[in-house]
């Protein structure tokens, strides 16, 4: 018997030795290697004698779900990697990630990153470059090319890949079929244009119970000051072939086209429920769940809570349609919001950490997470399968087309370490225009000026 087996774990194994002698010898040999853990050799993926422990900082929305359901499933295949997932509130995740990434003795090996964050961390050099540094630990069957281009690009920066999509999301249009039928309007199709949609909006403000008071409105979206408000008019701009920035990252939205796009978002407020000017993410969703608005523009991941769960919504899957947002001259629009998983450069167990990410984003893992947890896949192969949950079928279809149009029109937030700062400026000015404090033209002019100043530094 080898030496490393004479540990606490070793004794436990000795009990089971009679049953699996050959395995014991194998693990003992591996164990001697895994004991000396260092980043240089990736720290291994653990052995029965010496488990590898990795920790992940994840967004509150799914950390618990992953810990309770996903980790046990992962452990069926990799029993010697112990995974701990801590939830961190969304607003602090990036800052805490930065603190951990620069820690000589880091607490975390992995992080989930929201769509615009990768450049900020990658620039500082705290993330593993997965297609290069992690190649020796990449499973041969891990198929990079199977990912849709749009979700994969969210964790890419400067031509390098720093993460893999774990929970994908796109801005979508949900519509309430009953409310459309009530006013005799045809159901929206992906071909519906923004101008057609604006023209229909007044008739969707209606009195459904005939008591003389308006009780249902046309639209809900994020109008409140925040990072998620500008993507709406950005989508309008993108759908007409416009872009926020040119190739040299100079603002290119202060144009007639840009002003018209922002004006669309401002005008839609007229057909929204009272108080909609302060609608953030949850409020329009709740109005939709209550059957008070005919359509909303929101993250696709909200579909389940808007249409399926009777404890949360008053609607049913039959009643709720999902598709890409209305079209412009270049076709339908959307906006990307991907949660990616990345490995910290200072991790002591990058191999195990990358193994977990590979498993989660592999063909097999995606099918499992989609069918068990209901989260959205990024792979073409997964989207081509028939989902186990029936309500996912129309969602898959919408998602696939959203990926395609997002990739074509670059429908995402600016790819720069200054992404968050830019978004804050856009948020201020979008909100000022929505409230009528300033005209759409002046708002964009001011935003363009401030962003130019910001990027000059």
């Amino acid at each position: 018997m080898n030496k490393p087996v004479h540990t606490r774990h070793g004794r436990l194994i000795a009990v089971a030795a009679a049953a699996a002698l050959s395995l014991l010898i194998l693990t003992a040999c591996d164990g001697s290697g895994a004991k000396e853990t260092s980043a240089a050799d990736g720290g291994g993926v653990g052995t029965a004698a010496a488990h590898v422990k990795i920790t992940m900082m994840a967004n509150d929305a799914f950390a618990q779900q992953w810990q309770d359901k996903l980790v046990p499933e992962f452990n069926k295949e990799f029993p010697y990697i112990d995974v701990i997932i801590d939830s961190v509130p969304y607003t602090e995740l990036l800052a805490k990630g930065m603190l951990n990434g620069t820690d000589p003795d880091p607490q975390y090996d992995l992080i989930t990153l929201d769509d615009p964050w990768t450049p900020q961390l990658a620039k500082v050099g705290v993330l593993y470059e997965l297609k290069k540094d992690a190649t020796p630990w990449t499973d041969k069957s891990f198929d990079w090319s199977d990912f849709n281009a749009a979700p994969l690009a969210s964790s890419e920066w400067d031509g390098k890949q720093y993460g893999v999509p774990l929970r994908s999301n796109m801005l979508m249009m949900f519509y309430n079929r009953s409310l459309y039928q009530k006013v005799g309007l045809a159901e929206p199709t992906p071909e519906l244009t923004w101008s057609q949609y604006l023209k229909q909006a007044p008739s969707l403000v209606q009195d459904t119970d005939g008591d003389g008071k308006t009780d249902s409105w046309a639209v809900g979206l994020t109008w409140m000051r925040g990072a998620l408000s500008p993507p709406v008019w950005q989508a309008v701009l993108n759908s007409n072939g416009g872009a926020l920035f040119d190739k040299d990252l100079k603002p290119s939205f202060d144009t007639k086209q840009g002003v018209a796009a922002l004006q669309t978002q401002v005008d839609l407020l007229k057909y929204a429920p009272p108080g909609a000017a302060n609608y953030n993410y949850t409020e329009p969703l709740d109005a939709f769940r209550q059957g008070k608005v005919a359509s909303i523009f929101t993250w696709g991941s909200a579909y389940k809570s808007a249409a399926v769960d009777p404890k949360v919504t008053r609607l049913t899957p039959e009643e709720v349609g999902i598709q890409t947002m209305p079209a412009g001259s270049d076709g339908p629009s959307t906006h990307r919001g991907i949660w990616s998983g990345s490995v910290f450069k200072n991790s002591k167990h990058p191999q195990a950490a990358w193994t977990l990410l590979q498993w989660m984003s592999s063909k097999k893992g995606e099918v499992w997470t989609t069918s068990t947890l209901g989260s959205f896949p990024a792979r073409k192969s997964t989207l081509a399968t028939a989902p186990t949950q029936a309500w996912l079928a129309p969602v898959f279809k919408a998602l696939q087309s959203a990926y395609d149009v997002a990739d074509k029109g670059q429908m995402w937030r600016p790819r720069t370490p200054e992404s968050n700062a830019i978004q804050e400026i856009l948020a201020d000015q979008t909100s000022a225009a929505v409230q009528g404090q300033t005209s759409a033209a002046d708002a964009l002019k001011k935003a363009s000026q401030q962003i130019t100043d910001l990027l000059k530094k």
Partner: protein
Amino acid sequence: MTATAERTRERVGDIPRVQRPTVGRRSRGERTRIWSGVIVCVLFLLPLVWMLLTSFKFQRDIFTTPPTVFFEPTITQYVAAFKNAGLGPKMINTIIVALGAGILSLVAGAMAGYALSRLHIKGAATIGVLILVSRGVPPIALAVPMFLVARTLGITDTHITLILAYCSFVIPYVMWLMRGFFLSLPKELEESAMLDGCSRMGAFFRIIVPISAPGLISTFIFSVILAWEELLFALVLTSRKAVTVPVAIAGMAGDTEHGANWGALSAAGMLTVVPVVILALLVQKWLIRGLADGAIKG
């Protein structure tokens, strides 16, 4: 008023006597005053009543027109608060941290407040004001350096780190309140004690502290509340073992996938209120009385 408190008060001759509930018939003005007080209190509690109702609703029943008070009640949200957000252990963390910060700050702050009020130390007044002003520091300016220190010492994510961090804003507060309190005590108290052979420290702990018990207790309650609801330091300094309830609540509110569930948030909100209300009810007698004895003098 307890018997001991009564006795100490009598010993301290010149402290103004506290108004006592009048026995017998009240004047009309007095009755109006009582009822106005009750109405104002009820008005202030109305949002909390709404929160209580919301905490027993299914999510689909929270937003309705018109707002409803008749609905199918459920404890789902409380179960969710404990199960999904792991509120149980976080509540224990919060209690440990809030009490720890309260006690440590009370001891250190009361001693310093005493020094500032009675010992005529040169420059003490300036120090006092500077410490007071430090309460206006944007907390974000302290949180990150604190984290870096804790990281170097290897004590991130521990109760003691959070307790120490909370001292940064609770001690100044205790100091300021207790300084005013001590100013109102008659000087002869400790002087006579010291002539009897007590050291300064001895006089403080044997004479001043017992007399000031009501003031200390009310200051303690406010201190605990300050630490109880603190979010920013907790966010930066904890990650798993020492996470407090406000952090868990912030996470629930920022659900980027399904939107905030106001039912679960209300349930969590109600749960944070309960321990403090119990504490307040237990000591409510001193809550005002402590301050009444001259807590703040410029």
